[in-house]
C-alpha cells in the first residue's frame, strides 16, 4: 500500500531524513517511535506531500507520489492522491468557522460531489462511530480536546481514505482524554484500516501496531513486531531510548 525507498529530505542545510525505507501492507498498522526531532513528523508529512522530498521514492497504492510533474499538473496529481490519505494532526486543525457536521461534509461535498443529504448521513454515521452524534451542530470551540480530535478523525474518514496517518494525535490532550481517542483508533484497527501512527505512547503502540519502526536522527535504527522491538531490542540506541521512556 505504501512504500518508501531511500527517502532524503533536508531543511536548508540540515538533513532530517537520511535515507528512509519502509513498507506498509494493506491493513497493516505501523507505529513510528523515536526521540523528539528524529524526523517522524517530517516522514509522515512527505507521504501526502505536505513536505517535498529531495531524493527517493514514495509509492502509494501503485502510484508514485513524488512524480516529476510540474506546476498545475503536479498539484492535480497530489490532490488526487491526498483524497485517499487521511491525516490527523496533533493540534486537530478543525475548521473553527464550521460545525462538526460541516467539518466532516465539506470535503466529500466539494470533491466527490456527494449530495448534501447523503453527506449528512455519512457524517452522522461517522459521528456515531466516534461517539459524538449529539455534538453534530457544535463548533470546535465548544468541544473538548478529545472531542475535537475525534471529530478530526471523522473528518478524515469522510473521504473514505485507504490509509490514515496519525501524527501524535494524543500529545496535546489532557491525560484523561487520551483514552477516548485511542479507543477510536483501536476500533479502526479492528476494521483493518491501514494506519501509520507516530506516537510517544509506547504502550499504545505495543497494543495496536503490527510493526514498529524506531527512528533516530533521520534514520530507521530498528524495526520489527512490537513484541520483539520492545522486549528484545537489538540495537543499543533502541535500548537506551526505551529505558529513558520507561524509566
Amino acid at each position: 500500500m505504501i512504500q518508501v525507498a531511500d527517502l532524503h529530505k533536508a531543511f536548508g542545510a540540515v538533513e532530517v531524513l537520511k535515507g528512509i525505507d519502509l513498507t506498509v501492507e494493506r491493513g497493516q498498522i505501523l507505529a513510528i517511535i523515536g526521540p523528539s526531532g528524529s524526523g517522524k513528523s517530517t516522514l509522515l508529512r512527505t507521504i501526502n506531500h505536505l513536505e517535498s522530498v529531495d531524493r527517493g521514492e514514495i509509492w502509494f497504492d501503485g502510484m508514485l507520489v513524488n512524480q516529476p510533474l510540474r506546476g498545475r499538473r503536479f498539484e492535480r496529481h497530489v490532490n488526487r492522491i491526498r483524497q485517499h490519505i487521511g491525516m490527523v494532526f496533533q493540534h486537530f486543525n478543525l475548521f473553527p468557522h464550521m460545525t462538526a457536521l460541516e467539518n466532516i461534509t465539506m470535503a466529500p461535498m466539494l470533491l466527490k460531489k456527494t449530495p448534501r443529504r447523503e453527506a449528512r448521513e455519512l457524517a452522522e454515521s461517522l459521528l456515531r462511530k466516534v461517539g459524538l452524534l449529539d455534538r453534530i451542530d457544535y463548533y470546535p470551540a465548544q468541544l473538548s480536546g478529545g472531542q475535537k480530535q475525534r471529530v478530526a478523525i471523522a473528518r478524515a474518514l469522510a473521504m473514505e481514505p485507504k490509509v490514515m496517518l496519525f501524527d501524535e494525535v494524543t500529545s496535546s490532550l489532557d491525560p484523561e482524554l487520551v483514552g477516548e481517542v485511542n479507543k477510536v483508533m483501536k476500533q479502526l484497527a479492528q476494521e483493518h484500516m491501514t494506519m501509520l501512527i507516530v506516537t510517544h505512547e509506547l504502550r499504545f503502540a505495543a497494543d495496536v501496531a503490527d510493526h514498529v519502526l524506531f527512528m533516530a536522527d533521520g534514520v530507521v535504527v530498528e524495526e520489527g513486531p512490537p513484541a520483539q522491538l520492545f522486549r528484545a531490542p537489538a540495537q543499543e540506541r533502541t535500548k537506551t531510548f526505551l529505558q529513558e521512556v520507561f524509566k
Partner: protein
Amino acid sequence: MDVALIVRVSRFFAEAAWVTVEISVLALALGLCVGFAAALAKVSDRAVLSLPARVYVSVFRGTPALIQLFIIYFGGPQIGLQLEPFAAGVLGLGLNIGAYMTESIRGAIVAVERGQSEAARCLGLGHLQAMRKVILPQAARLMIRPLGVNSIALIKGSALVSAISVVELTYTAHRFISSTYRPFEMFMLSAAFYLLIISAASHLIRTLDARFALRT
C-alpha cells in the same frame, strides 16, 4: 463666526458631501476588488502572479497619492486616457487605496494558522478551494478592522481630488472662500461634514465587525 452665512451655504456643502461619499464608495469598491486580486496573487507561489502584485503595491504605496492623481488626470490624455475629473478621482483613489487593501488582506490571509490550510490541503482541496472554503472565511473576520481603517483613510484622502477639480467638500470650501473671504467658517463647515461621514462609516465598520466575529 457668521452663523447666517453658514446656514446659507450649508445646502451646497451637503451636496458636495454627497459627492465625497460617492467618490469614496466607488473608490472603495475598486480598491477592494484590486486589493483582493492582488492579495491572492501575492500569496500565490507563482511568480507570474506575485511579482506584478508586489510591484503594484510598492509603486502605489511608495509615491504620493496626489502625484498619482495628477499622472492619471493631467498625464492621462497624453497616453490616450481622457477622463472626467470624477472618473480620474475614482481611478486614482481606488488604485491607491487598493495597494493598502492588498497588504491588509494579505496580512489577514497569512494570519490564519498554517495548520488550517494543511488540514484542507490534505483532504485533497486545491489551493483555491482551500482559500475559498477555509482560509478566506477565517481571514474575512480578521480583515474587517484593517479594511475599515483603510476606508476611513480613503474618505479623508478623498480631499485630494479637489486638486483635479472634482466638486467635493474641500473644493467647495475653497470655492466659497473665494466668494465670501470666510476661510474659518468654510473649512469648519467642511470639517463638520467630513466628521459626519466618517462617524457613520466608523459605526458601520464596528457593526460589521461585531456581526462577523467568530461564533463560538
